[in-house]
């Protein structure tokens, strides 16, 4: 049972597992909607890059089923669906070091039927990037910009960006956001972006997938998440206040931040507030939560279950 018809899903994973020597990704069950931006958020080593590599058929998996743009993908299946995808890897490829951006772009131009030199040059200009130097000679941020231009120049149906902003200065970062906004403006394009940067997720994302130690901590619609979660500070002198609050509706986290002062995180804020009052607590403040705080709660909850 799915909430969307198939052609509304850009990336679908069912029970997908990638087993490495020290790290296992999955089992993952997730559906990323077409036409939307999904941000993948998680600490270092949570499996974000492995997930991208899996989608690009660079990571063998034997369990589960993955579909991209409605086509099944397995490491051994034909790679035609990749022509409809743009991918920016987390790290640049060393074997491309001696190429210039122009040379790399010429390879890409042969490979992708949708390649558009005009679009490529516009992107380079917008990023203020130089296409003539060898990639090895470029600064980290400059190389990121030319690789991003190459990944976007064929106007792919699906854009997979693995921490695209790493190394970008604030100006380049803003340009990137507006170029990605323009790309999404077409309406039927899909962006999947791994990000550490809260502001990037706030500005760009429609949906968020949280990853931790190779497991999904949930797939959320961004606004529903930020609307729903609240951090409530309560005061009580009762000795059993903490035990009572631990049963609050929608409880996601609870800490005693000072004697008699409790911080409660919940995804049912109104019910939790009423419950707190009925448990004899005074409600001091109620506020929305930041992305990191939500991630932190989800991780602590997951760790407690292990």
């Amino acid at each position, binding site marked *: 049972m799915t909430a969307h018809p198939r052609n509304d899903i850009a990336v679908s994973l069912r029970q997908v597992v990638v087993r490495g020597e020290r790290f296992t990704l999955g089992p993952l069950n997730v559906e990323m909607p077409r036409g*939307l931006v999904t941000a993948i958020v998680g600490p270092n080593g949570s499996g974000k890059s492995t997930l991208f590599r899996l989608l690009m058929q660079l990571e063998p998996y034997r369990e589960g089923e993955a579909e991209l743009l409605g086509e099944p993908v397995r490491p051994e299946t034909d790679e035609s669906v990749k022509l409809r995808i743009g991918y920016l890897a987390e790290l640049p490829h060393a074997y491309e070091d001696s190429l210039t951006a122009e040379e790399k772009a010429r390879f890409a131009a042969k490979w992708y039927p949708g390649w558009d030199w005009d679009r490529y040059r516009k992107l380079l200009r917008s990023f203020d990037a130089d296409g003539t130097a060898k990639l090895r000679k470029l600064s980290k941020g400059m190389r990121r910009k030319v690789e991003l231009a190459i990944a976007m120049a064929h106007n792919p149906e699906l854009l997979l960006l693995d921490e695209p902003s790493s190394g970008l200065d604030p100006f380049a970062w803003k340009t990137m956001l507006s170029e990605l906004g323009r790309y*999404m*403006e077409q309406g039927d394009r899909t962006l999947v972006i791994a990000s550490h940067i809260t502001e990037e997720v706030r*500005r760009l994302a429609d*949906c968020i997938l949280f990853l931790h130690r190779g497991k999904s901590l949930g797939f959320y619609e961004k606004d529903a998440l930020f609307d729903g979660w609240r951090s409530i500070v309560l005061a009580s002198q009762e000795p059993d206040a903490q035990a009572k609050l631990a049963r609050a509706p929608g409880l996601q986290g609870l800490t005693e931040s000072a004697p008699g002062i409790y911080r409660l995180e919940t995804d049912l804020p109104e019910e939790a507030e009423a419950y707190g009052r009925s448990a004899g607590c005074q409600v001091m403040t109620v*506020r929305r939560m930041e992305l990191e705080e939500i991630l932190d709660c989800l991780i602590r909850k997951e760790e407690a279950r292990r």
Partner: protein
Amino acid sequence: MWIPIQIDENRPEPLYHQIETQLRGLILGEELAEGTLLPSIRELAVALKCSVITIRRVYQDLESEGLLRTRQGTGTFVAGVDAVVREGHRHERVVEAFEKAVETGLQLHCTPQEMESILRDVIARRTAGRKGEADDRASEE
């Protein structure tokens, strides 16, 4: 195009509700004239740092209320609003503001007589101020 919508992170109302209420107010208050082309769903989402899912919902709601209309391929426009609807909205907004004030009064244990006398004082003070300003302007001319 820039639209003066401000999201208050501290309000308990969900984002779509805040955006919808303000956009409705701008249309019914005629700050956005009939025929104005609104930003695309993605543009407004980026500007307000919210999801396109939220903006789509707002546009759809206001379209079904008859305040917006979407022309395929061109975008979403402000529709012509009936004067009766506009008057109804004006009335509604004022009633809402009074309800809030009365609620505060009740919470702080004001009697109805107290509140009525406060209201009369406020009206007297405010209208006197306005009248004063108008008189000033008149004397300058």
